[in-house]
């Protein structure tokens, strides 16, 4: 009970009562002195932490729930889908040809979009004049804190622009949520729609510009392939003009069959010579010599024919055949190169004008019907949080330091 009395005495010891007591104890005080001391007492009252905290919370509540301008939020959600199979197209609008699941592709594209939509490029597209943003989101009475001031700098405008939008790619679904803030329902709604247009433009223009670059490259490749084909064809033409239109391979085959005919005749003659040598005792008998001479001549002829077909002085069919094969291969290769270059050029020409990726709308933006109350509570609870944290953390640190 003693405890209670002490506390209640403390709590009831208000400065006004002590002031009254002081006043009563004096005889006839000067009015200036009284008013001065009254103001001093009032200022002392303001210095009390409890009063300061109450003032802070009251002003925070006044701003959050009375002065603060209404804010309207428009939300849309979409997913970026590819129109072509994954293994034939790039994984994202900026990535290479690595295959990736659709969710991941959309997520990666969403992350690029998140940066792009908050960039100064998009801001300049949507608000081409520096005054257009200021006019649309100007400050109004009584809330002079919200909005953008006139003749603000470009970085300040960009910071303000970024506060008006929130782009959140969702890692689980791959969808992208776009939230826009406006000071009236139409502002939030129109801004959201404008951002969706910019998103579509970004996703497709990037693809198309990549394909346009690829098209230029493919056309250069076609020109090069045509040049190579022309060169190879000319070389083959020159060769054929020099050695006639006949084919070296068939020539080589004819020579081979001619030599094999001679060789078969040689075998027959050798058999005949051997049988005559058995019939006649004299090896120099005219019948035997006649056949022997034929065999010798035939052998010489075969040797000559063989040398003629391979020697440089003769027709040199082997090297001619190799050269001709090589020239024909060059022509074939150049033809195929030209064909594939033409296909690539044609593909990139088509892709550079075709829409590759689509924004599939999951939720269209709606014009908000009532202002968003969330920011008011967030800000007010944040003010309470500041006091709680300052008291908790500050008190703990001060007490610990005192003890230390």
């Amino acid at each position: 009970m003693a405890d209670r009395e002490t506390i209640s005495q403390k709590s009831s010891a208000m400065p006004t009562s002590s002031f009254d007591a002081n006043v009563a104890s004096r005889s006839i005080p000067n009015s200036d002195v009284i008013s001065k001391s009254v103001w001093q007492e009032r200022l002392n009252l303001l210095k009390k932490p409890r009063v300061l905290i109450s003032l802070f919370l009251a002003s925070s509540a006044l701003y959050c729930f009375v002065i603060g301008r209404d804010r309207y939020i428009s939300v849309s959600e979409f997913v970026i889908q590819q129109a072509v199979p994954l293994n034939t197209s790039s994984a994202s609008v900026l990535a290479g040809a690595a295959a990736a699941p659709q969710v991941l592709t959309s997520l990666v594209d969403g992350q690029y979009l998140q940066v792009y939509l908050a960039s100064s490029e998009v801001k300049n597209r949507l608000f081409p004049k520096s005054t257009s943003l200021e006019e649309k989101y100007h400050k109004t009475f009584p809330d002079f804190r919200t909005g953008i001031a006139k003749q603000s700098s470009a970085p300040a405008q960009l910071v303000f622009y970024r506060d008006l939008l929130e782009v959140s790619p969702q890692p689980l679904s791959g969808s992208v949520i776009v939230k826009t803030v406006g000071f009236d329902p139409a502002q939030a709604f129109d801004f959201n729609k404008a951002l969706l247009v910019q998103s579509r433009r970004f996703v497709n223009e990037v693809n198309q510009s990549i394909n346009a670059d690829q098209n230029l490259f493919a056309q250069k490749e076609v020109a090069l392939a045509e040049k190579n084909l022309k060169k190879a064809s000319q070389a083959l033409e020159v060769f054929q003009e020099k050695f006639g239109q006949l084919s070296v391979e068939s020539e080589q085959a004819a020579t081979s069959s001619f030599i094999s005919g001679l060789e078969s005749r040689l075998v027959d003659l050798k058999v005949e010579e051997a049988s005559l040598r058995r019939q006649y005792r004299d090896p120099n008998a005219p019948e035997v010599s006649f056949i022997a001479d034929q065999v010798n001549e035939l052998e010489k002829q075969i040797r000559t024919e063989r040398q003629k077909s391979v020697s440089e002085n003769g027709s040199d069919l082997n090297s001619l055949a190799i050269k001709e094969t090589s020239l024909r291969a060059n022509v074939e290769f150049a033809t195929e190169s030209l064909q594939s270059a033409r296909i690539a050029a044609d593909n990139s020409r088509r892709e550079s004008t075709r829409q590759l990726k689509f924004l599939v709308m999951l939720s269209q933006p709606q014009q908000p019907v009532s202002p968003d109350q969330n920011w008011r509570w967030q800000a007010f609870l944040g003010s309470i949080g500041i006091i709680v944290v300052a008291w908790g953390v500050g008190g703990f640190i001060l007490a610990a330091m005192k003890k230390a």
Partner: protein
Amino acid sequence: MMFINRVVKGLRRQWMIIVAIADYDRNRQAAGSSLGSWESLIGPLQMMLFFIGMRVGFSFLRGTNKFAAGGSTDMYFNIVVFMSTGFCIAFLFRNVAIKSLSGLKLKAPLYYPRIKPLDILLALSLNDMRALATLSLAILGIVYYFTWNFRLDSPGLAISVYLLTVLMAIGFGLSVVFLGRLNKWLVKIIKRLIQRVIIFTSGIFFATFEIPAHIRPFITWNPILHGVELFRYSINNEYPIPDISLSYLILCSILMLGFSLILYRTNESLLLEIND
């Protein structure tokens, strides 16, 4: 008007008592420790650093993501912020519950009948709350200093979640005080439950979105997980929180606190007898 005035005065007096007990307990702990009052900060900090080390170590052992120890959560948080946010919420709950189980005594002769077991619990919770809030703020400050990237998207949600966790911890602590009186084995089981099951399902080490959808129901029963995930969400609104709801956390906190206060109101004498 008189009634309101009396209620305000009574609440103020009670608050002063709680603050005084909190000061007394802090001074008592400071006297028994070489680190003084910083003991209540250094203890949790050591454990938190150990947890961060564990998480980073596992990431290195897994070898999948050596430079981003947080795995997929690195998209949203620095690993230190991720772990500390989880730790400060889950350990606030754990500390209050453990202290309640250990008995609501001030370990000193006090002859003020106004000091009730509930005041002691509130004072101990207050000290833990202040220490862990200081730790969180210090860590956020250090990370901000090094990365120059500070974010607090929903301050109102952050403070609400923190205070709801405190209320839930007080409710839980008060309930287990009575449960602990029934059987000493029950106390042991609850202690183990708090130390292991609750800590490892509270999302200190993982994010809910990292868990496959069919396993999530096995961990989302835990309201502390909701507190931890909502606290992270309040820092970064892009952080995905599937199957996490603020209403579940509010419901659990109110139910637990309401139930414990009824229990306390009807059985206060039991605690007083034991304490005396």
